[in-house]
């Protein structure tokens, strides 16, 4: 009997503890907002941290500028950045904690794999997001999601067109990362769309072997054109290791992941004899216009460490949200995420043009019905062949 009383007491105690956990659901989280809250989830630590920090810094810079200019009708913005370590399982927690912190609109996730989770979660609650850099084709699959960067598939198609035109009948090399969805997504579309008379030598590397590319370089050594849909760090290692092996009149051609390759501390791109070019939406060497101003402000504040397309795209995404919100005449700071989403969707589907973009060569940016971005892709020659 005594034991039974004890057990009952215990159950009562547990019930009390549990009740602390269980607040009331479904309340208006945004009711107490005094600023518009923009949420984001990205890798702020771990191997992919450079991308997450870039977006965070770019977005913060944009928000500070907007706030300094009086915000949206006098109401300021605020960024809540959470860390997902490039791990999709952390997204659900981040997403719900952001909602509870009063998130009204978001930048989604920085990287594609976690963003696949975010896409579905945000669709449940109808939270609008525009991701600066999660470039997977499926990210904008619901009507509340948009991309600021080019989708992988479109980059692959653009590269395939370029190759089919210029290298018909020749042998080209491809160097991509087989366990990375960015790399895979571009390469799949590239392979599908490239004309049949271009012979392709495929080489891959994986996360575990991202340091020594000797055998891949050997396989590619006779190619005059090497397509590299990868990020710039492995690319710079590849180029350093390959500079004497691969013919000096060869061309390295990358996508937006290449951006920032010439800014890596300690990597002297001038010592690479081959031509390095890329298809991108951001020119980190711009000397005029809004882009140059952004580069200057960013460098003053955060240094060149994370100055890349992620930072620029994060900056642009915040401005796009700001412009769309002012175009939609949002004036209630406690507007719920879902209501705001409906207003923003109306804008983005109704031919909203984002002006003064840092990316896309300074031209206007718009979005198509699928949520893919329409902007100018710039083929940069980062460095001419020697």
């Amino acid at each position: 009997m005594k034991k039974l009383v004890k057990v009952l007491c215990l159950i009562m105690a547990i019930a009390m503890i549990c009740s602390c956990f269980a607040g009331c659901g479904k309340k208006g989280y945004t009711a107490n907002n005094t600023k518009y809250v923009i949420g984001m989830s990205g890798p702020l630590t771990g191997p992919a941290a450079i991308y997450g920090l870039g977006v965070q810094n770019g977005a913060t810079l944009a928000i500070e500028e907007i706030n300094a200019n009086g915000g949206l009708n006098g109401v300021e913005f605020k960024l809540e950045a959470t860390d997902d370590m490039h791990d999709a399982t952390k997204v659900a927690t981040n997403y719900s904690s952001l909602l509870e912190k009063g998130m009204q609109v978001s930048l989604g996730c920085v990287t594609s794999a976690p963003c696949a989770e975010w896409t579905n979660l945000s669709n449940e609650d109808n939270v609008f997001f525009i991701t600066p850099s999660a470039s997977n084709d499926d990210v904008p699959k619901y009507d509340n999601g948009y991309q600021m960067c080019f989708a992988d598939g479109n980059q692959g198609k653009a590269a395939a067109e370029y190759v089919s035109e210029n290298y018909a009948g020749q042998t080209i090399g491809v160097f991509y990362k087989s366990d990375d969805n960015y790399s895979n997504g571009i390469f799949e579309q590239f392979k599908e769309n490239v004309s049949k008379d271009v012979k392709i030598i495929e080489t891959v590397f994986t996360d575990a072997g991202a340091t020594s590319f000797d055998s891949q370089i050997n396989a590619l050594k006779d190619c005059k054109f090497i397509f590299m849909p990868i990020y710039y760090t492995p690319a710079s290692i590849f180029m350093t290791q390959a500079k004497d092996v691969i013919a000096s009149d060869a061309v390295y051609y990358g996508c937006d992941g290449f951006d920032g390759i010439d800014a890596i501390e300690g990597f002297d791109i001038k010592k690479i004899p081959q031509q390095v070019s890329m298809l991108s939406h951001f020119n980190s060497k711009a000397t005029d216009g809004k882009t140059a101003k952004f580069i200057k402000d960013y460098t003053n504040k955060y240094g060149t460490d994370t100055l890349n397309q992620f930072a620029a795209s994060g900056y642009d995404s915040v401005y796009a949200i700001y412009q769309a919100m002012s175009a939609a005449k949002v004036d209630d700071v406690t507007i719920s995420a879902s209501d705001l989403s409906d207003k923003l969707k109306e804008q983005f589907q109704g031919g909203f043009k984002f002006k003064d973009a840092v990316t896309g060569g300074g031209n206007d940016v718009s979005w198509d019905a699928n949520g893919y971005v329409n902007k100018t892709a710039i083929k940069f020659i980062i460095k001419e062949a020697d």
Partner: protein
Amino acid sequence: MKLKKFKHYYSTFIITAIAVIFTVFSAGIGLEKSTIYLLEKIIIAVILAVSLNLVVGFLGELSLGHAGFMCVGAYLGGKFSAIMLPNLGNSALNLIASIIVGGLVAALCGAIIGLPALRLKGDYLAIVTLGFGEIVKSIFQNTSRESFGGALGLETPRFDKEQLFIYAFIALIITLLVVTNLMNSKHGRAITSIRDNEIAARATGINVTKYKLYAFIISSFFAGVAGVLYSFSNYNIQSSKFGYNYSIEILVMVVLGGIGSINGSIIAATLITFINTEFATILTGNLAVLQNLLYAIILILIVIFGNSPALESFREKYDVKKLFAKIRKNDPSTINSDEAHWDKIPTKISMDELFSLDVTNNDQNSVLNIQDKEGK
């Protein structure tokens, strides 16, 4: 006698009570989304820790690839549910069928890995499972988009978010019942006897390989179950998650909770998951780098404090169990828990490899071994 039996199922009862309370709450006023996600995470972590404890604590073998079995369960269970979606819909039936499929496939992998590895003496299981985990991860990462999603991960149906945690609780309770029952049965005693002294166990007529395999397969089955639950709690699963770091994370829960203590595993898994989630929600923005730093410092301090031989007397003085005993006005010496103190448990992680320079393989040449041979 009855009370003694009740004692074994103490934790199961408490978990059941918690499950009922949360269910009532969720049906009544509803739960915060973050609470539900946290619950799902905690339950999955507890199932993993308890099932790993079966191998590390009760069998005394080290496994560094528990996440690999979870990965197999998650992918195959997730794929099965995606295939069955048109027929069964996103229903409880689909969930249960997927859990069984995922668990069985993981158990099959456990049998394939365990059969050769467990026949060897020593901690080879640790390294074989480490390899297995990495192989599984690498294979799923490079599958085609249509089969298992490849690098972008497998899209799985997410179960109704208000209800999944209830089913997860049921799975957890079943896990606890199975493991506690097993450990208090004849088979369980055979398994622990293998841990304590393999040669003596063999001498008493216990089929050592069979029982080792038995425990290992059950453990991988539940890892698979946890994997399926995981795939149902997410829209998208990526195999890169299931690397050796994740296996280690589960091992940390088991070691911190106390090897061979089911209650300890439950508490440690809950606390670690909770702390990690709290860190992730509190330390945002520029503070995010502090997450790992704090976690690492806490981890090192706890392990040193809890295990250092030099602090033995200090620990005894402030032993939690004894503190409770004082409150109950009992003599501390009369409290004898069924769980042995974990650092006293002779795990077979013996590290008997010798440091050597020999190029020839001289099992035969060593003085020790010659004596052994003569002895036989």
